[in-house]
């Protein structure tokens, strides 16, 4: 089996670009810490309301951690608790969320905050709110007849 010299050149160039590309992704993931949300903690989906921190959804100031606030969400068909929250501008926030029933999405539209909420699992993402304004949270995973009504709001204020 022989390969045309142009095809060899084409493949060397292509595979070379691929290696560069994957290296960039790898450095970003493992050196800069840009990993997709992959929290490994679990929870009993029947007991979400009585399990810390989900017994008190909303924004809470924390001390001695890498982030200033924790923002806790409980999703269920077809709403999020809290339905609206104000976050101070520039705050570093850990979002912690789970679902009480079926699979839901958690997407802050127009941002990089995007994660799946699955019954039994906790999803987390750390972010800094460095732009003021009102952000819409939408459920982006089909969850039933009211899926497109399921939303929440984050207001980033000075």
């Amino acid at each position, binding site marked *: 089996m022989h390969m045309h010299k142009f095809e060899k050149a084409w493949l060397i160039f292509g595979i070379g670009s691929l290696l560069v590309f994957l290296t960039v992704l790898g450095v970003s993931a493992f050196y800069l810490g840009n990993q997709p949300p992959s929290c490994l903690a679990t929870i009993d989906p029947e007991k979400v309301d009585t399990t810390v921190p989900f017994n008190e959804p909303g924004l809470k100031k924390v001390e001695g951690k890498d982030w200033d606030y924790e923002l806790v969400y409980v999703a269920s068909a077809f709403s999020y608790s809290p339905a609206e929250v104000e976050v101070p501008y520039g705050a570093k926030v850990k979002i912690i969320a789970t679902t009480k029933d079926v699979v839901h999405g958690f997407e802050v539209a127009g941002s990089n905050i995007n994660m799946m909420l699955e*019954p039994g*699992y906790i999803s987390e993402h750390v972010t800094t709110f460095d732009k003021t304004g009102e952000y819409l949270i939408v459920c*982006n995973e089909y969850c039933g007849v009211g899926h497109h009504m399921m939303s929440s709001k984050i207001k980033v204020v000075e």
Partner: protein
Amino acid sequence: MFNPSAKLKVDPRDAKLAMAHFFVAFTALAIGGLAGLLQTLVRSGKFELPAGIGYYQILTVHGVVLGLVLTTFFIMGFQLAATSKTSGTFTNKQRITGWIGFWLMTAGTVLAAVMILLNEATVLYTFYAPLQAHALYYIGLTLVIVGSWIDGAAIIMKYAEWRRKNPGQPSPLLTFMSLVNTMMWIVATIGVASTVLFQLLPWSLGFVETVNIGVSRTLFWYFGHPLVYFWLLPAYMAWYVVIPKVIGGKIFSDSLARLSFILFLLFSIPVGFHHQLMEPGIDPAWKFLQVILTFLVVIPSLMTAFSLFATFENFGRSKGATGLFGWVKKLPWGDARFVVPFIGMVAFIPAGAGGIVNASHQMNQVVHNTIWVTGHFHLTVATSVVLTFFGVSYWLIPHLTGRTLTKAMNKLGIIQAVIWSIGMTFMSGAMHAVGLLGAPRRSSYSEYGGAPQAAEWIPYQVAQAIGGSILFIGIILMIYIFINLAFFAPKGEQEFPVGEAADEAEKAPMVFENWKLWLGITVVLILFAYTIPFIDLIQNAPPGAKGYKLW
């Protein structure tokens, strides 16, 4: 390659089997296309579904009927015809196997369709446990898959017979490719069959109360990504083998075509985590490993692109073309059998680029479950693959029915593809753009309580409806052409184009036919990519999830 078993014409008995598949496939196209049109209209905000029909019910119809039924039936019909053509007529036993497969798939389709129409299964084709559909829906889809295995068994039996009768010879290229795709399909569907049979079915029947969501989703996506290669590889069969003959050129290289199919077999399956990048419960290092494996299909894709354009250029130059791009003018721009799949090839360039974004470990976060993804696969499967299938139909249907593609139908075929491209540019373009702004996929029309961000999305949704309406005109045209070619076109001989390799003298290395080796590596790669994270999902599983019917 010298191939004594290649037939001038597919035997009428085999033709009947293939045509049975195409009747179901094009019925699915009509129903699924109508569902798609309704979805885009609803989402424009200017139209509501009558008679209490739900948006998500229509969405389930669209996904199941086009994603599973149209594709699987068309592909099996095409592969059966291609195998019969290149390896010889099926024996009675092989053909009966094919018919059993066909009827099982059809029965399963009807069962699943009835459950969807009764609104007992509005869970989309991706299942989404713990949403719980009626058990008969799961049984129906299982029959579709088991039927496709039996259908595929006919191809495997024919291949084995050919090899027995031609020791030491590489199998005919189209048979080889059909076989690779069939084996990839069987290995991949084990995942979805497992979650349905061992998890969802017992749970929907009430034998067990809860289901492990992480395991179910992982088994589904173990199948969900190779599924897209199962759609793509038959298009590649047409691009590699049929198109060169249609334009009057040669296959660039028989061996390299085989190598690229083997690479697709190896790297299509151990990659499902890139659909689960945003999910909890899976360690990011394992996600990254599967991201790397995902990107390895870039290599056979680059090989394919090179081969196709080398074939085009060699052909043009053999016709006296000069200059860097002079060969472009020599291509048969009036032949639907070439032009329609060619548009599909061109669409694959932006489609592939979008796919690279989706599979990128971090960039996925921007687009995951936004309608960008819907825009992406309407370029890959609903343009590249589907236009190629249409282009194949223009010669294969009349070949099988003993009719010919008339000049008028040829022209209509080209017009169809142009309409399709215009419609898709509107629809897929708008989906990509508004997806970047955050508009979610699989969602009905919503103003999200008057949120300003959601208001920005609405003009794009109107553009999607315009595109969807243009595409529906394309579907009506395609159905019209299909009916013409199946029943009304003039009787005659329509060629089944099978290209010859430019490197005719060079026999393909026999190592490509060593299935112990290739299936062995496939299994090793799958075990490598999945064993540890899968054990994790079971050992560290949370309490199971109860079923919900929220529609």
